[in-house]
């Protein structure tokens, strides 16, 4: 016990000796959370728009007005030649063009269903898709108004239809941060507990101080505990700070039990700390350790559903995600934060996660040899 305490004290001294290290542990995660929390959105604004109004009528101007009165589009101006449109989009000047053909209002009034053309630059697929959706929305709004105009009103008495009424549960305002921030929290605790612990152990190897520790009478489990407990502690401190900031800045709602959240996070840390030890056994330098753990982390992240919902994946990948411990904690975090799920609904995630965690941890510990090969 005494020995473990000494090692822990040494680790803390070492960690807090450099100002930079404190910045790494406490400030870096906050920056990451702020950037990710604000940056991950599929909303699109200020799409650079040019309009080719070949009808130049009262009605065509009414449509164009719909595009000018929104911050989703930045109206750049009129351009009538086809070549001009092409040059503007290819040369990154505009992202979208609307072409209203000659005779549009004439055809509209005679019920000939005239055609409006929307041209969008598909290079940025996300923006293109969203911008098209907005544009179609504005045009169909115009159509509705046009149909509802007293002169045009159809006799509604004969008409019956079904009207969709949707309720968005758990996230009425469709705020992306509510969904992303709990996921980012997982990433942050993984970085601290896996990457930093691996690099910390390897650092002793690289500097040769691990050999010095080995000739001391400290036992292997004492050494490991002494190394891991500080990181465990730091991870929880960070978790608490990050959650507090998330609530303040992103007004993240926490629906579930805080106690449950910390308890299940602790179970997940078996996986990350185990991986940290494992990485330290197969690498010789901090550069390698960082690289290998980065590789493992990117892989786990991509397969965790953080950015790419697991439901969207092809079947084979979907099945592979069941092997990924991070998949479970991602669901757990988000469900506790957003839905306030209790343990009974999370058991099917907790069990496999704990199982993987223990296996990885035991494997890592067994592989860690307290001797120089």
């Amino acid at each position, binding site marked *: 016990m005494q020995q473990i305490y000494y090692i822990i004290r040494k680790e803390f001294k070492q960690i807090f000796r*450099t100002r930079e*290290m404190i910045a*790494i542990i406490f400030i870096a995660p906050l920056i990451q959370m702020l950037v*990710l929390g*604000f940056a991950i*959105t599929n909303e699109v*604004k*200020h*799409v650079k728009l040019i309009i080719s109004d070949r009808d130049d009528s009262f009605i065509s101007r009414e449509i164009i007005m719909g595009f000018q009165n929104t911050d989703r589009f930045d109206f750049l101006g009129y351009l009538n030649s086809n070549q001009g449109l092409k040059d503007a989009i*290819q040369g*990154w000047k505009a992202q979208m063009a609307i072409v209203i053909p000659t005779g549009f209002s004439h055809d*509209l009034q005679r019920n000939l*269903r*005239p*055609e409006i*053309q*929307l*041209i*969008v*630059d*598909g*290079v940025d*697929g*996300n923006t293109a898709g969203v911008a*098209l959706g907005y*544009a179609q929305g504005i045009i169909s709004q115009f159509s509705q108004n*046009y149909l509802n105009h007293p002169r045009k009103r*159809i006799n509604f008495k004969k008409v*019956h*239809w*079904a*009207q*969709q009424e*949707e309720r*968005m*549960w*758990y*996230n*009425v305002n*469709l*705020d*992306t941060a509510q969904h992303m921030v709990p996921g980012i929290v997982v990433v942050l605790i993984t970085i601290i507990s896996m*990457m*930093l612990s691996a690099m*910390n152990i390897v650092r002793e190897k690289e500097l040769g101080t691990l050999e010095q520790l080995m000739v001391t009478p400290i036992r292997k489990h004492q050494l490991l505990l002494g190394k891991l407990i500080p990181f465990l502690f730091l991870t929880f401190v960070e978790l608490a700070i990050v959650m507090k900031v998330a609530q303040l800045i992103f007004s993240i709602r926490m629906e579930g039990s805080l106690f449950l959240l910390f308890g299940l996070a602790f179970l997940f840390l078996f996986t990350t700390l185990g991986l940290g030890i494992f990485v330290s056994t*197969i690498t010789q*330098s*901090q*550069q390698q350790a*960082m690289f*290998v753990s980065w590789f493992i982390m990117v*892989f786990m992240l*991509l397969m965790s559903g953080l950015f*790419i*919902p697991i439901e*969207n*994946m*092809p079947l084979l*990948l979907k099945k592979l995600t069941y092997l990924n411990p991070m998949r479970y904690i991602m669901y757990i975090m988000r469900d506790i934060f957003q839905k306030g799920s209790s343990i009974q*609904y999370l058991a099917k995630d907790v069990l496999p996660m704990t199982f993987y965690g223990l296996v990885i941890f035991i494997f890592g510990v067994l592989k860690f040899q307290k001797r120089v090969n």
Partner: protein
Amino acid sequence: MLAIARKEFLHIIHDPRSLMIIFAMPIIQLAMFGYALDMEIKNVDLAVINYDNSIQSQHLVEQFEGSEFFNIFAYNGSTDDMEQLFLERKAKAVLIINHDFAQSFHRNISTPVQIIIDAADPNAGTLIKNYCSQVIIAFNQKYASRPTLPLEVESTIWFNPDLKSAFFFVPGLLALLLIMICALLTSITITREKEMGTMEQILVSPVKANEIIIGKVLPYIGISILVGALILVIGIILFGVPFNGSYTLLFLLSTLYIITALSLGLMISTIASTQQVAMMIALIATLLPTMFLSGFIFPLSAMPKILQIISHIVPAKYYLMIVRGVLIKGNTFFQLMEPTLILVLMTFLLLIIALRRFKGNLES
């Protein structure tokens, strides 16, 4: 200088594991993004609570069944305990048909159809909502008489008609991997020499500071070009990314970007004293902005002003424009003048500051 380059090269070769990761990483990421970065959701689990056993409600359910979007099943519980479906993740949406659906459909102009959507993930929620409206519009066209739109909208998507995700993530991955290798790895190797004390040994040798640096980064330039070529070849062959512009132009501008990234890495190494610090700074100063503030995946236009301002100094933003421009739009050098000039300017600034600091560090 060449001797240092050779030493650094041997150093890299001696570590086959890292080398393997450098080459395996882009391939795995390509495969993941290529097959998984599909924003469409299919087979949304939709539970149906049908209180109205009429032909009309049957038609509505069949309309949902016939859609490729939904994987539909009947739920026998009531609306009071349907939250269980969401908590157990058995359903993403619940369709509720009231007991007077058929009656109201005959009598009233508009009959509400309630759909409860699990919008915990707002993107998925919005998509599901849109799928539902498509089904209900189809239902109305078949069974109801709702006035149709008086005009038609024809959408044309240029350069990427099928909105294939590969067209935008292959350039993004190129920007990401190049900066990762150049900035992250170089900053760490240089800091490593500092931390291990070997930098001082090199310094007492008659090699000049500039030569040390150039020697150290040369092998990484080589690796970057190889990895870049690998990503492009896979992207073109497997994912059908076009190459509409000039090879020489892309090669030259990519080299420019590599030099920018190296200068950034060098700059970081002058700030950091240990490898762990270098890694953390490199992660925050390069990877994070390259992934999230360059327009790689998420559009910049709706982000807070401060992030948009920061995005102007992210080299990847300009390189992304260059790669997308050359590959997909077939841009000429003239059309890419602006991003090129900005990258050149950035590189000069970074290099001047980094060399100053590097020499300053040596003298102290």
